[in-house]
């Protein structure tokens, strides 16, 4: 009974917030609707007993994405001209196609066999050789490592895409615009107090991923937020995008992942196979490098393309 009391408002709230995002008349209302949708989704994932996904939604949805769209929306807010609404025929067509997709999805969902096909049991049976305690991490790093490798490369390409939007004359400068510095404001206070605590928590979240909900993406994103905060407060300047150390930090994760994967040909059964007994060590090595890369790449994504002028 109490469970229903919890789930029903969440389900309705998710629908409501989604609808509000789509129907909002102001850009800012839509952005806040989207952020609320992400927060409700975090709680929905919790209720679906997927704490790993909830953690990702909390840190990517509620922090990183929110910061980016809220910042961009308020920066272009006054300049943006709202696009003309599409013709009525196009809107009706889009509505019909969406409704069709919804019906198909509902049909697929309701025609699932009972019990639904699941690979959960084989995963749990084969978790011992990986030395991990969290089955989600075992799937990501051992059973489906190829998917995770490709995902990790996506981050590097995303940074490429963002940096390539820099105007020619700004190339080689630090990512993002220059921010006003204010020695005693609330923002400077937060930027001084929060990162020491946040770095510990970020490393902790990345570390417990082996045995509990958490991991490289969630921990790395927390670290990115802590790195960006002093940039926004104008306390420190980020490194230049030509700085080899920054570039290496962004590429380290996929590079280490790829090297360990290739090593599998020599010492194990093939690409991305771990030699028996060393699985956990190698997985932790990859996770460490990936945490660094996620932190550096996401920090660069939040800051955006270089806009600074040379130091006066």
């Amino acid at each position: 009974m109490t469970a229903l009391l919890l789930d029903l408002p969440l389900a309705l709230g998710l629908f409501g917030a989604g609808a509000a995002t789509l129907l909002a008349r102001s850009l800012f209302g839509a952005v806040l609707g989207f952020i609320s949708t992400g927060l409700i989704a975090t709680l929905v994932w919790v209720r679906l007993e997927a704490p790993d996904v909830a953690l990702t939604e909390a840190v990517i949805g509620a922090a990183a994405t929110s910061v980016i769209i809220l910042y961009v929306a308020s920066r272009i807010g006054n300049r943006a001209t709202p696009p003309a609404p599409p013709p009525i025929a196009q809107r009706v067509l889009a509505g019909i196609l969406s409704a069709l997709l919804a019906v198909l999805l509902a049909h697929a969902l309701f025609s699932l066999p009972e019990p639904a096909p699941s690979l959960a049991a084989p995963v749990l049976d084969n978790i011992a050789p990986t030395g991990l305690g969290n089955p989600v991490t075992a799937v990501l790093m051992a059973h489906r490592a190829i998917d995770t490798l490709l995902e990790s490369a996506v981050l590097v390409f995303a940074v490429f895409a963002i940096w390539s939007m820099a105007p020619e004359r700004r190339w080689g400068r630090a990512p993002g615009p220059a921010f006003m510095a204010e020695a005693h404001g609330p923002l400077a206070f937060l930027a001084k107090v929060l990162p020491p605590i946040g770095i510990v928590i970020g490393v902790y979240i990345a570390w417990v991923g082996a045995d509990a909900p958490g991991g490289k993406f969630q921990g790395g994103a927390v670290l990115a937020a802590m790195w960006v905060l002093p940039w926004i407060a104008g306390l420190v300047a980020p490194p230049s995008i030509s700085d080899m150390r920054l570039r290496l930090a962004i590429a380290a994760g996929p590079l280490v992942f790829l090297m360990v994967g290739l090593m599998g040909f020599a010492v194990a059964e093939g690409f991305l196979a771990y030699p028996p007994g060393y699985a956990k060590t190698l997985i932790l090595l990859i996770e460490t490098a990936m945490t660094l890369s996620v932190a550096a790449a996401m920090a660069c994504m939040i800051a955006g393309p270089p806009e600074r002028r040379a130091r006066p």
Partner: protein
Amino acid sequence: MAEVLTGAAALIILSALVGLVRVLRGPTRADRLLAAQLLSTAGIGALLLLAAAGAPELIDVALVLALVGAFASVAFVMASRVIDRR
């Protein structure tokens, strides 16, 4: 006890969802932001209650949400702090 805690979590979430009306009504940008902030804090409270009701791993989700909770407000003032000289 678990029933009481789950019920309390449900009440907090319900009240925060009702508060989301401010996202729609505004009128200022700050009002819309506040409603999302309320949802974030309420979510942390609900997570703590559910963690105590028998899912201790949720404390970490609450911890992360508490850490990044202020970032929406930081993003809110971020654009006004850009030094825009081109």
